[in-house]
């Protein structure tokens, strides 16, 4: 194939990829136990954030979460025993991404945990994510003590089933219009979900009230969701996964279909190369820290939540969320707008409905093209939480991090080889 026809083939493939991406119609439809949704998720199997990794290369918070979830599932009597079992190879590890799932930070998914179910009604596929646990000492940030496990048990036994009943009762909640409104209210759906969490609660509360007979239980659930500004994050992540999975496997497409990190490696996938991972060491976030913590406490970048940036939200929509720019230490409102402007240089299109008021309703930049990343030297900017580097402590801050250029260069070289160019 000569270069002119090759360029045309890539243009056509990317046009198809962008069309599927922009037509995504995600609806939150259910909450069900993971074992009912992912048949491969047996006892002693743990799904994690990021590209594939085994115990010996896992970072501190990931190990802490593994120990915690093993005790939570009843596979180990205590955290020490769980660590010994993990080192002996008693647990099987796989990425969430291999099972239509995503998870924030450590992102652990095990068989008994309830999962949010988002269906992309444009393509019919479904994607899953755990229920957000709140802030501070939580398992996604490596927390693993009794308080963390008790909260997970309450989500498993009370909140999860109630949310499932409520969602089935109300017929599901369309997410595309909800995110449209959230953007106009200052959310970027990664580090700021205040508006979308509130909008969701407003839609869900009547059905939840019908689903939960005990007023005390209902009050506890509403208080939990109402006090958690990031409750919507996990829903946005399942939404992102449901939108991006149908974009995979378009021959010759250079569009990024996943970006994710496990605290050790950052990995990306591109449409034209299917499910192959292109990895590089993760970078350290630059950000602001909670009182008593500093950069010396921080773990490197971690989590599947970069699926948010992959669809054009999070750091890509920073201009819509000036309040978050200060929270994550990204600088002024003008600098926030500058980040979104730079992301426009590495993307193929704009979302027709997810628009930014302060930019005259211009759509968020979406459809990352590895060619543009490598050519310009501009890498995706990601908003992120920061975990303590030691197991068991939890979140210590929030910040901004860059995707490593090496992932995009590797993907480009691999595509060149696939196309017989090198």
């Amino acid at each position, binding site marked *: 194939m000569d270069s002119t026809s*090759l*360029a045309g083939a*890539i243009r056509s493939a990317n046009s198809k990829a962008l069309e599927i991406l922009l037509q995504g119609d995600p609806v939150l439809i259910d909450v069900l136990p993971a074992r009912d949704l992912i048949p491969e998720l047996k006892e002693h199997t743990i799904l994690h954030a990021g590209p594939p990794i085994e115990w010996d290369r896992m970072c501190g918070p990931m190990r802490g979460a593994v120990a915690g979830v093993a005790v939570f599932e009843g596979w180990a009597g205590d955290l020490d025993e769980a660590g010994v079992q993990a080192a002996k190879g008693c647990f099987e590890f796989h990425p969430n991404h291999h099972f239509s799932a995503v998870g924030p930070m450590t992102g652990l998914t095990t068989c008994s945990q309830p999962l949010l179910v988002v269906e992309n009604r444009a393509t019919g596929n479904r994607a899953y994510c755990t229920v957000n646990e709140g802030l501070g000492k939580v398992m996604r940030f490596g927390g693993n003590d009794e308080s963390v496990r008790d909260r997970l048990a309450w989500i498993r036994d009370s909140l999860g089933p109630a949310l499932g009943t409520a969602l089935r009762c109300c017929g599901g909640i369309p997410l595309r219009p909800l995110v449209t409104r959230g953007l106009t209210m200052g959310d970027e759906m990664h580090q700021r979900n205040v508006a979308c969490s509130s909008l969701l609660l407003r839609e869900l509360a009547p059905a939840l009230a019908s689903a939960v007979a005990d007023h005390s239980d209902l009050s506890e659930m509403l208080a939990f969701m109402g006090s958690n500004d990031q409750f919507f994050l996990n829903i946005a992540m399942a939404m992102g996964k449901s939108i991006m999975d149908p974009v995979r496997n378009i021959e010759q497409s*250079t569009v990024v279909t996943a970006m994710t990190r496990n605290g050790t490696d950052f990995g990306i996938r591109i449409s034209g190369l299917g499910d192959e991972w292109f990895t590089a060491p993760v970078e350290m976030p630059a950000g602001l820290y909670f009182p008593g913590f500093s950069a010396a406490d921080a773990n490197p970048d971690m989590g599947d939540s970069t699926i948010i940036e992959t669809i054009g939200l999070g750091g890509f929509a920073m201009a819509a969320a000036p309040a978050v720019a200060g929270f994550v230490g990204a600088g002024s409102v003008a600098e926030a707008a500058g980040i979104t402007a730079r992301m426009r240089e590495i993307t193929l299109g704009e979302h027709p409905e997810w628009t930014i008021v302060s930019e005259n309703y211009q759509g968020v930049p979406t459809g990352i093209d590895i060619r543009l990343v490598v*050519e310009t030297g501009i890498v995706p900017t990601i908003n992120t939480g920061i975990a303590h580097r030691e197991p068991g402590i939890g979140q210590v801050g929030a910040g901004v991090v860059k995707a490593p*250029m090496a992932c995009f*260069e590797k993907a*480009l070289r691999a595509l*060149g080889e696939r196309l017989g160019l090198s």
Partner: protein
Amino acid sequence: MSDQNDAPDTGRMCPELLQSPPRVINVGLAVFAADLDAQDVDVIHVDWRPPAGGDEGLARLLSMLAD
């Protein structure tokens, strides 16, 4: 041998250049633009860098894959 007649007519250009304030387009390193700006010189900065960070192999590959 070069033809001296091809040389620019600097005799007419230089006085005008030297008599008016400098107007600068800076390409590449932003620090030069920042220094001029600090001295109240009008400067427009163009944020440019070599494609693929100057990696010739990647730049060649990009040229084959480009629109």
